[in-house]
């Protein structure tokens, strides 16, 4: 297995001088592996096997059931669409916000605090807030009425475009601060000197961003991308609060099969779809961001 090399230096310098001993890395990662395996190992095996087991043994019955459900393909489509639009959008916004902060505007500490606040909201509460804004007699339509504009049914089932935009806006509002905080924490580690040096040599803002800041920020961006995508696959409370069943997401379907329909088997099959999708995107991020980095270094 190949190794992700840190951009600062090849790391093996710190490795134990005598390779015969148990490498220190094992001592460091050991506790987390043991902890996770003890706690989640058996439940995960149980949970995953449910998707393929009935009384007679191995079966694909539940997988078929899942694929034939009328909500399944719309849910897949919505999940992919939402993630594909939301992730680039919020990374753009988060990086812009972080750079704004770094340029040291007045009150930057207060601004940063305010920008991090949505992080404190649970997805249930965030769904509630945005529902009060977008519903037919909510704050947005009240506001529009002040200008003599008649209300629009933002969340009506037959208006897929506004449905999607409402969910998108709410999710971007709620979860961009997660990316922001990771990016800000990463930016802290990048000395301003580099940027200033590049400026002295006449690099434009975009050149500095492209060739100095972003490459140095890569470890943080990689982590933020992985975590944000995995979490995006897991959240549905906002979409459910705003749209009910009209904008189904795969993870929402998992909950529906497990709780409302009381069929843990199909729920497990759906959970596996999310698991596989998350793992594939994570592998993609790990590889894609690593290779570019090494190519650039050499």
């Amino acid at each position, binding site marked *: 297995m190949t190794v992700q090399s840190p951009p600062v230096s090849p790391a093996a310098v710190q490795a134990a001088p005598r390779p015969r001993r148990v490498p220190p890395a094992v001592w460091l990662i050991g506790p987390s592996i043991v902890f996770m395996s003890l706690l989640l190992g058996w439940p995960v095996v149980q949970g995953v096997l449910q998707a393929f087991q009935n009384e007679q043994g191995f079966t694909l019955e539940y997988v078929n059931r899942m694929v034939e459900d009328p909500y399944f393909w719309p849910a897949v489509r919505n999940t992919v669409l939402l993630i594909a639009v939301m992730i680039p959008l919020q990374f753009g916004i988060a990086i812009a916000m972080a750079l704004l902060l770094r340029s*040291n505007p007045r009150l930057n500490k207060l601004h940063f605090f305010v920008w991090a606040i949505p992080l404190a909201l649970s997805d249930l509460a965030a769904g509630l807030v945005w529902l009060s804004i977008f519903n037919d007699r909510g704050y947005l339509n009240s506001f529009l009425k002040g200008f003599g504009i008649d209300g629009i*049914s933002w969340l009506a089932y037959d208006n897929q475009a506004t449905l999607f935009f409402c969910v998108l806006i709410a999710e971007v509002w709620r979860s961009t601060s997660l990316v922001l905080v990771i990016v800000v924490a990463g930016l802290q580690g990048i000395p301003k000197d580099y940027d200033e040096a590049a400026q002295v040599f006449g690099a434009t803002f975009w050149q500095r961003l492209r060739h100095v800041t972003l490459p140095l920020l890569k470890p943080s961006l990689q982590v933020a991308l992985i975590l944000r995508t995995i979490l995006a696959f897991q959240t549905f409370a906002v979409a459910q609060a705003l749209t*009910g069943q009209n904008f189904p997401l795969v993870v929402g379907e998992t909950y529906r099969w497990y*709780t*409302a329909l009381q*069929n843990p088997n199909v729920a497990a099959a759906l959970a596996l779809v999310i698991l596989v999708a998350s793992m594939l995107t994570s592998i993609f991020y790990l590889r894609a961001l690593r290779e570019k980095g090494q190519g650039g270094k050499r």
Partner: protein
Amino acid sequence: MNQDNLHPPQRQPSRRSLLLAGLGTAMSLPFLSACAGFDTSGAAAGEGTVGFLSTQFTPVEEKQRYEAVLKKFLKVPVAYNPVDAGVFASTVRSQVDSGNVSLSLLGGLHGDLAPLADSLEDVDPLIRDLSGRGFGKDILELTKVGGTTSKYVPWMQATYVVAVNKKALEWLPGGVDVNDLSYEDFLAWAKAAKQGAGRPVFGMPAGPKGLHHRFYQGFLLPSFTGGQITTFRNQDAVTAWNYMRELWENMAPASTNYDAMQEPLARGEVLVAWDHVARLVGAPASKPDDWLMVPAPRGPKGRGYMLIVAGVALPKGGRERERAEQAIRGLSEPVTQIETLRSNAFFPVVQTELPSDLRGAVALEAAAVRLQQRSPGALLALPPVGLGKKDGEVSQIFKNCFQEICLNNSPVQATLDRQAGQLNTILNELDVPCWAPDPVSPGTKCEVA
């Protein structure tokens, strides 16, 4: 400006030690506290307390009112713990499976308890003891959950009625009695109201947690076809769903977000809506004079209406069995039942006279419920009997019909045929007899004709 951000290096050790100190306290805190957390279920749960897990009365206010009822009328201490249906099922199943049950009493709707039948104790002796209370025959049949022995004791019941804001009466077609609507009148009214108000003002609880499937199962289909399952795809059912499609065109499209109608009603978004009595009671709260509660409409085959039954059950191997049984006895006392109606709008399951001094909204509902049950042509429909685990999936089939026919505009007959296929797959596996209003004949399998 940079100065705020410049931290002199000598402050670093202090920050570090602060963090370490913080970590240290943080680590020791949970382990220093002798207990494993603070009690949150009211009565310090422990020896002698009946742990009552329930899916009902989850909203804060309702829970507080019900806790007061329990405290007043039961002779045993009860820790009332309402949770949502998913958590309820997981908790009961995992506790009974692992043989380590800390619960003593379970309360839920028929549909919540039926899937858990394997984890519940038989309560036949208790029901025999309590036979003097006068439980209804239909309800007792339900408690058997498809088997031969009762799995729960009836706790309370409810049904569905139509709430009407008096503002909507101006569009009521002439010569129509609002207390004796036919489905045709109802549609004509919805159309007139949409035209008059400039927007649709009829609504229904078609949200993800809404109970609209009960409307098709217990009201629309029985009224049009006289059955629920056997007639699922016959000509009458096609008429019924065509009617539904037209009705939907005159309803507020935001209905697909509504879980309980009392809020859109109270907000004035919707003026007329059908829903569960407990989910309508909040609408007239402060000004009952502005509201009417009326029976559901009648159709060609009668006035179909559905009963909702909640029951209390004993988990297998549960704690404090004796006290739990004592609590059940207390719950089925007429005084407790009446008090539950007063506080939380669920109706008694035992033989008793309703008092005349009910608060506004409940009094309105009680009148509508009586009219609905006693009107000529009243046709009782039960929620699916004996489906156990598959209860939710059968309900989903009715919701899918709505989704396909009303929202996606699919052809009616083809949709019903396809959904009937799925329904039959489930029913074939279960091999249960039909339930009212379908012809009940023990020993024969219920299926779509």
